[in-house]
C-alpha cells in the first residue's frame, strides 16, 4: 500500500528524512530502527570537511525556524569510510546529498559517492542559501543549474535528483531546464531565505545574518511548487517543506510528489518519521485511497479529467 518506485529507488514507503535534518542517521538510530524508513537523505557532503558558519545558527519564527549551518560536514573521505559503511547494516537505499562551491567540486564528490554500495541516488544541493560562494547561484540561474546537472550526470553511477530552491521567480522554468539537462528526478523545496533581528542589540540573530526558513510556515509555498513542477516535468518529484503529519504527506502526494521528505519535524519529535509511516495507511483509507501511488498528482489529474469531461 505504501511502496513507491522512483529512478534508482525502490521504496517500501514514501517517507524520507530530509537532508541536514537527520545527520547520517546515527543519532536517530538510538530512537528507532532505521529500517522502518523509505530512505534517508544524508547530510550534504562536500569534498573537504567544512566547519560551516559561526553560531548562533538557528532562530525561531512563527511556525518555522531559520538555520544557517553552512554545510558543515566531515567531508567526502570520512563519509565514504565511516558514515556510509555504518549505514550498510540497514536495508536502506541511501540518497546522498552533494554540495560544493564550484562545478568541479560537485563532479568530484558525485563521481565518488555514487559508487558507494548503498547510495542509490544523488541529490544535488544547488540551493543551499547558507554558503557564500557557489550553492545559491547554481540554484537560481537555469543555465548554470543545467550545466551542473549535465556534468554530474556524466560521472554519476546512480540516478541524479536535483534539489530546487524556492527563492526563484519561476520554479517551473528552473525545473524544465534541469529536466532537459538529463536529471532523473527533482526534490523540492529547500529553504526560503529569511532573517530575524535581535531587538536587544539590533543585529541579526543568526551570526550569518540570513538563514533558511523551514517548517510548517513554508508548507503552502512548497505544496504550490510541487503542484506546478510536477505538472511541468515528466520526471518524478520528491516533495518537502513543513511536513509534520501523515495528512501533510497526503497533501504533498496529491499535489504531485512521488515521495515526501521530512525535515524540521525531526527536531520537534524525533519519532515523527516512524509515526507518520504508521499512520499513513489509516489516513489514505480515511480519504478513500487504496495506495500511496494512487494519490500522486491527484489534484491536477482530477482537474484534467474534469476539463476533458467538459469538452
Amino acid at each position, binding site marked *: 500500500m505504501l511502496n513507491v518506485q522512483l529512478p534508482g529507488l525502490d521504496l517500501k514507503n514514501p517517507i524520507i528524512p530530509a537532508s*541536514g*535534518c*537527520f*545527520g547520517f542517521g*546515527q*543519532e*536517530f538510530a*538510538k*530512537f528507532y530502527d532505521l529500517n522502518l524508513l523509505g530512505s534517508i537523505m544524508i*547530510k550534504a557532503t562536500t569534498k573537504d*570537511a*567544512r*566547519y*560551516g558558519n559561526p*553560531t*548562533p*545558527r*538557528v*532562530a*525561531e519564527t*512563527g*511556525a*518555522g*525556524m531559520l*538555520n544557517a*549551518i553552512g554545510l*558543515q560536514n566531515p567531508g567526502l573521505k570520512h563519509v565514504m569510510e565511516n558514515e556510509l559503511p555504518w549505514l550498510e547494516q540497514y536495508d536502506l537505499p541511501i540518497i546522498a546529498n552533494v554540495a560544493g562551491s564550484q562545478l568541479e567540486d560537485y563532479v568530484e564528490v558525485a563521481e565518488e559517492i555514487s559508487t558507494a554500495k548503498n547510495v542509490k541516488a544523488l541529490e544535488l544541493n544547488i540551493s543551499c542559501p547558507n554558503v557564500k560562494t557557489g550553492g545559491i547561484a547554481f540554484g537560481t540561474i537555469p543555465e548554470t543549474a543545467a550545466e551542473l546537472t549535465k556534468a554530474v550526470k556524466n560521472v554519476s553511477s546512480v540516478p541524479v535528483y536535483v534539489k530546487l530552491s524556492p527563492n526563484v521567480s519561476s520554479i517551473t522554468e528552473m525545473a524544465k531546464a534541469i529536466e532537459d539537462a538529463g536529471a532523473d528526478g527533482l526534490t523540492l523545496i529547500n529553504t526560503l531565505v529569511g532573517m530575524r533581528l535581535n531587538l536587544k542589540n539590533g543585529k541579526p540573530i543568526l551570526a550569518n545574518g540570513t538563514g533558511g526558513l523551514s*517548517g*510548517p510556515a513554508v508548507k503552502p509555498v512548497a505544496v504550490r511548487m510541487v503542484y506546478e513542477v510536477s505538472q511541468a516535468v515528466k520526471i518524478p518529484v520528491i516533495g518537502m517543506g513543513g511536513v*509534520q503529519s501523515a495528512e501533510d504527506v497526503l497533501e504533498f502526494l496529491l499535489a504531485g510528489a512521488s515521495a515526501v521528505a521530512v525535515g*524540521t519535524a*525531526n*527536531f*520537534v*519529535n*524525533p*519519532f515523527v518519521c516512524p509515526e507518520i509511516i504508521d499512520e499513513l495507511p489509516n489516513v489514505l483509507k480515511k480519504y478513500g485511497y487504496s495506495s500511496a501511488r494512487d494519490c500522486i498528482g491527484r489534484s491536477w489529474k482530477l482537474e484534467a479529467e474534469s476539463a476533458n469531461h467538459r469538452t
Partner: protein
Amino acid sequence: MRKELLTVGSNECIADNIYKLILEGDMVQDFKKPGQFVHLKVSESMTPLLRRPISVAEINHDQSEVTLIFRKEGEGTSLLAEKKRGDQVDVLGPLGNGFDVENFTEGKKALIIGGGVGVPPLYELSKQLTSKGILATHVLGFQSAKDVFFERQFKELGETFVATVDGTHGIQGFVTDVIDKEQLDFDYLLACGPTPMLRALKMKYPDREVYLSMEERMGCGIGACFACVCHTDQSEKTYVKVCLDGPVFKAEEVLL
C-alpha cells in the same frame, strides 16, 4: 534517552522571573550525571516550534522526580512558567554528557562557579560531589538581589559565596572577583554560566583541571543538525557538539 510525557508536580516562582518546576515520570530513572539536560516541547502549537533545553537541577530517583530551574525569558519559557500541577510536558531526555563525578577523587577540593541560570545544574553536581566526600565551595553570581535563588540549598552542601553585579546582595562584583578576594583554591573547578564568565575562568586557569558547561542555541538537541557546534582548540575544522559531546567539556577542549 527517550521521549515521554512527564507530569508537573509543582511549578513555583522562587526569584524574579525564576521558576522551579518539578516533573515526574519513569524517564527520571535514566538520569544519572549532573549537567545533563532535557529538551522540552512547551506547547502543542506550531509556535514555538522547537524544543527548549533546560538543565536538570536535582534528580530524585525515589520519587521519580527531576527539578528544573529556569528563567522566564522569551515565548517558550513564558509558556513553561504557566504550567500547573497535573499538566503534562513532552520531554526528550536525558540528553548530553554531564560532569563525570566518578572521575573525581574523594577528599579533594572542588570549586563550583555558577552565573545566573547557569547555577541550577551545579546543585545536583554539588550534591553528588559532596556525598562522595569531595569538599565543595560555591561561588554564585547574579545580577541583583532579586535574582538570587538556592543560596540556602548550596550553603547546606558547603561554603557558599554569593556575588551580585550591583552589590544588592552578598559581595559586589563578578564571580572572578570573589575568587580573587577570597583566594579560593581547588583541585577541580566546575562552572556553568554565561560565555564571558566561562572564558574568563578558562583564561585564568590555563593549566588547572577546569570543567565548563556550555550553552548554545539548539535545533535537534541530539546531535543531528549541527546547530550547536563549538570550535575546539585543535584546528579550524574540528568541533564538538554542545548537545551531544557536551554540554560539559574540559576547558582545554573548547575554544571560547
